[in-house]
């Protein structure tokens, strides 16, 4: 499903180029879940952004279902983000001026894949039924994260990218959110690539990789 080969990325700093990723190789099969761990600044989010088509790599290749992201132009990358992935951030990134219902449907509508039945099911399973008319600022942190999950899944993406999705939650709420996420993904063909600091959460996914010094190490 996802195949990353020799991926390199560095950032320009006043002291010169700072390499963050030094030749990353990674494969993720359809329906598989993978946790990405590592210290702060190790390049986890950078790797996620590159796979999401939010940024361009200096070298290497990212291939998703036969498409090489490096060969896509801006418009094609935007189309890839619309229909090819679901993105969940630690800060949720909900649109403050839209109600919960519209936030949930936004990406699916942009992709032309809005399915009211699927959205209703998501609302039901995420426990958002009573919150649909509210604005994000009127929700608790946990509720906001559930809306963000719902928005990402509403498009039924082949690949779900989650950047520390439970980073703003306490341990118990984080575990509940992950349980919910895994239940929603169970039986689907959606692959999951999740960046996390939590070893206990990482252990609940099928594979776990660690980024260190710009390279990937497989953990047990």
């Amino acid at each position, binding site marked *: 499903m996802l195949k990353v080969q020799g991926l390199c990325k560095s950032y320009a700093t006043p002291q010169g180029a700072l390499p963050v990723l030094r030749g990353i190789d990674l494969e993720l099969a359809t329906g598989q879940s993978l946790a990405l761990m590592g210290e702060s600044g190790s390049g986890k989010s950078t790797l996620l*952004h590159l796979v*999401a088509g*939010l*940024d361009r790599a200096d070298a290497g290749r990212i291939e998703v279902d036969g498409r090489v992201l490096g060969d896509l132009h*801006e*418009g094609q*990358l*935007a*189309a*890839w*983000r*619309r*229909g090819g992935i679901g*993105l969940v951030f630690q800060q949720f*990134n*909900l*649109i*403050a*001026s*839209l109600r919960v219902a*519209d936030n949930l449907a*936004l*990406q699916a*509508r*942009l*992709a*032309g894949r809005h399915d009211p039945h699927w959205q209703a099911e998501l609302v039901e399973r995420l426990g958002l039924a009573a919150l649909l008319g509210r*604005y994000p*600022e009127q929700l608790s*942190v946990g509720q906001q994260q559930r809306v963000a999950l719902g928005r990402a899944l509403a498009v039924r993406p082949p690949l779900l990218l989650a950047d520390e999705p439970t980073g703003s939650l306490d341990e118990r709420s984080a575990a509940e959110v992950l349980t919910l996420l895994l239940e929603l993904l169970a039986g689907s063909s959606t692959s999951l690539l999740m960046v996390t600091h939590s070893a206990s959460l990482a252990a609940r996914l099928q594979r776990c990789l660690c980024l260190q010094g710009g390279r990937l190490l497989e953990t047990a």
Partner: protein
Amino acid sequence: MRRLYWTLAALLSHWRRHPLQLFSVLAGLWLATSLWAGVQALNSQARDSYARASQLLGGAERYSLVARDGGWFAQQHFIELRRAGWPVSPLLQGRLRLHGQGEQRLQLIGIEPLTLPAGGALAGQPFERLELTAFLGRPGRSWIAAETLAELGLQAGAQPLSASGQRLPPLTVWPQLAPGVLLVDIGVAQRLLDAPGQVSRLLLPAAFARAAPPLPAALAAQLVLQRGDEGADLAQLTDSFHLNLSALGLLAFVVGLFIVHAAIGLALEQRRVLLRNLRTCGVSLRGLLVALVMELGALALLAGVAGLLSGYAVAAWLLPDVAASLRSLYGAEVAGRLSLAPHWWLGGLLVCLLGALLAGAGSLLRAARLPLLALAQPEAWQQAQARWLRRQGWLAALLGGVALFALLFGDSLALGFVLLAALLLGAALALPVGLNLLLEAWLPHCRTPLAQWFVADSRQQLPGLALALMALLLALAANIGVGSMTAGFRQTFSGWLDQRLAAELYLMPVDASQAAAIEAWLAGQPQVRALLPSWRVELQLQGWPAQLTGIRAQAHYREHWPLLSASAQAWQRLQRQQGLMLSEQLARRLDLQLGERLRLPTPSGAWELEVLGIYADYGNPRGHLLVEAAGLQRHWPGLAPRSFSLRLPAAEVPALIQALQEEFALDDSRVIDQAALKAWSGRVFERTFAATAALNSLTLGVAALALLISLLTLGQTRLSQLAPLWALGVGRTRLAWLSLGQTLLLAVLTLLLALPLGLLLAWCLVAVINVQAFGWRLPLQVFPGQLLQLFGLALLATLLAAAWPLWQLGRSTPAALLRSFADER
């Protein structure tokens, strides 16, 4: 389309949650369009009237024979010329007052349609289409423009009476006739104007006139061939007037765009997260920009339509004053009712769209340039502030350089306006830089922590308030500048008028024989202490219309004709026919100094005279020259006096007027006493500046609104800055007072900086713009009372603008203040 729809829906949802910002953008665009469109409507209406005046009798190239003194002459000359084979057609023109229409005068034109030059046109229609039978038969026709008819409140077919009780032929609407004009048969005109056997000019076919045949010897001394186009002359003369109106409209437009720019910039800052979300959800950069431009366009269209409608209302409100000014100053008739062509509406909308794009261009560019991953990371305030101030500082310095260049090397009105624009914009851009420096320098001197916070927080508010303060600075400076110029002009004009209008009575005889009779009759009136006749000749000097006046240079003129500059013994030398004097505007236009010589074209060849004096001639768009009457009569033999100025005891004036009117049947327009003339001049002056004053006040209103909007939008983000102080024990009421103090501090500093800028602007207006536009320079005068009044008004506007956000702050609940901490998570 689907993606665009949902992208637009997400973008527009921002406005639903921030209606105040939406109001700011709409109000800014609406006000900008409104004032600009209003001024353009006035200009467009006036230009349309000039064009129709130009088309009245044949269009651009029109030749006619006129009396050398510019007055009426005997119809007999027409008969003599026709007999000599000249294809002339007589025309009589004069002012007519209708019974029951107050002081309003119409321009009455009498024509003789049978002899009109073939192939010509009347008000854009071929002569051949004239309904001759109806026009020449009884009761005839009075052709009139539809809007003039409506303005008079009369119906087609009506036969109103003239002020002297003469009945007009039935009024008939003639399409495209110039406003304020009544066109009748020449016989009717002679009856209505009480000018039997008189004509104003003899029209000639262009082809015949271009061959320039010599006039019969008997008429050569009395008539002169003139090529003229009234409309084009009016357009040329009134150009400066319209340019000044446009400049004020443009200033209001710029102030309005400042509001839009501020509101759109703030909206972009608040929508960074939204933009990032849309991009991460798969909206391409191009799609996002298209949606942003469409959103801006929709807002501009909405505000533009409202702006055009209110602009129309503003124009309709100002039109009577503008029309009266143009009539009094230039003799230009402008229709008193607005009728605007579709291109005005379309042009207005286009200007609004372009203005919105201009105001939003910076934000769109920022949205386009920001990398995707940085969209949601607001820059550190200090870093952004420093870079922003540095750029503004450089731009202000650059504009200062442009202003200096225009001042040193400018020799045209256009460069005069470049000077004004560069000066105002440069000063506006320098304002936040100056305020920041002032506050930065003040900060180390603050002793208490609250004082430190007060100054530091004022500094931090600068980016949010800068545009509103800049708008306030521009509006105040414009008010000070234009106010000082107007008040200075009023004082100078009134002093000048007192000196120049020293005679108690002014007479204008109908023709030469009446002039002679009046002169003889007045010689026998013991109460008349002095009789000062003057002779007049119309000239073209380097293409500019000028009046050459001949006087008997008696002691009266020495005492009452103030000179701006004069050679030694100027009046004595004028009396000895050794030179001439001329008006300031003509001297500037011809680039003449004292001691230089000017050649005047006369029927007997060039007449060269030395410039002995230069005098002010405010309000006269034409050039004016003064020579000794004997010299004038030598070069233009047979001239009759055009007017008489009479010195007599003021108490004797009413009786003499009555006696003159009884003896010579002179109407009110030919016998004018000093008081009436001064009152009329004063009224003309006030009406001339009424539109300017109104536009000025509206601009100040727009600036106050800009300040209100900025304070309201800032108020929404102020809570998070004030909450820490509240948590530290500063009460809400005290916080509200401190906030008011901050707003007032920034406003007062802006007011203080507006003072020198306004005075500089006043100097530019009197010493640069007036000189280039009208040809006269005024002394710069400062009126402290006026400045204090303006400062009071500006402070009141600031207080009113600050009141609502402060009232909200004072009433904010502890829960709202606590939420600002929660929001920071």
